């Protein structure tokens, strides 16, 4: 006669990491001052990744570091980090982000530096997309800023010895986590 199992524990793994996608950019790049849609992808432009599960099963968490150089602007210039261009927020040119509600693209990226040529500016990215509806399939990640005048948070990203002969080639490093709900 076979065993019968009663009251089997109902716990299951929660919060597990389902998948991780890596982004790396080791190319020194000049950052131009810009406004509106142009700046929104100036730091990370259309990085595509694949989500394995539907929205009901998992969400996305993005963490990372961007090494920069020089900080020429006042601090509040609308830094944003979003997936599928959702929620770019306030804009004087809504046609640049049609069908996208205002708001949730903002934040999740923070930076600080010194307004001195060839001095480091540190960017930290840490953003949960648990509130976003993202189903399985291909998605895009964009990081930058959304401003109503031409601004920039730094002069270069991924600086190297061109900026100072002591510096190795720096690289942006971002991880896109897919996490079980």
């Amino acid at each position, binding site marked *: 006669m076979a065993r019968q199992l009663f009251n089997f524990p109902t716990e299951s793994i929660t919060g*597990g990491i389902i998948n991780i996608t890596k982004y790396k950019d080791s190319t020194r790049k000049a950052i131009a001052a810009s406004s509106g849609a142009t700046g929104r992808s100036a730091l990370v432009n259309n990085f595509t990744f694949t989500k394995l599960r539907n929205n009901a099963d998992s969400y996305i968490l993005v963490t990372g570091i961007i090494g920069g150089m020089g900080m020429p602007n006042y601090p509040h210039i609308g830094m944003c980090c979003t997936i599928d261009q959702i929620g770019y927020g306030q804009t004087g040119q809504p046609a640049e982000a049609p069908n996208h509600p205002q708001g949730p693209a903002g934040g999740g990226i923070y930076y600080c530096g010194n307004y001195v040529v060839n001095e480091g500016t540190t960017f930290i990215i840490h953003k949960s997309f648990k509130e976003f509806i993202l189903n399985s399939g291909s998605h895009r990640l964009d990081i930058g800023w959304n401003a109503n005048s031409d601004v920039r948070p730094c002069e270069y990203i991924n600086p190297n010895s061109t900026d100072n002969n*002591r510096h190795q080639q720096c690289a942006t490093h971002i991880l896109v986590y897919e996490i079980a709900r």
Partner: protein
Amino acid sequence: MGRAIKNPPPVAVASKLVATGEYIMQQVGPLNSDYSNYTLWTYNYPKQKAANETYLYFAAQFNSLEAYSYAPSPCIRCLNQTADLYNGSQYHFGYQNSAEMEFNLHTCQNYAHSETLDGRSANISSSNFGVGTVPIIIRWDTLSGGGNRPGHTFCPTARAGAGTGGSQTSAMDSRGESIWYGYLRVWEIAY
């Protein structure tokens, strides 16, 4: 007659996380002179799985006393890593009135893998990445070989005070009554 299972668990979610380790960083310094390179800390992570089964992701945040400009950032990586040595690390130093002031904030993250990962070639030999000790270091390397200090006293202990040889050692005070620990986290992740 087959087995009958009552109240089976819901479908479990397969997790990529195999193991995690941590290392608490304590004071290094005062560094009273410049160095072209310097290994601040080494964490001998006990890797659980074989080189072709898991890779490592690691991150660390910490402070250091006395701000220095231009110096290369301390970077986190495996000791035997052969590429991507300087990814994902940066520091911010205090600055006021054309002078370096007070202290620095350091942030580091990187990963190492011996199998092709997301289309990128391996950056550590499988012989250095199997079950057992895998040293993870935080270190700076000056490209031009000159002397540098991205900080004077890292993760200062209580009443650390000032050393010598810095440009702003007077800014390193001794008022702190707690140890300013840093934390290093390692995630061992399945391919």
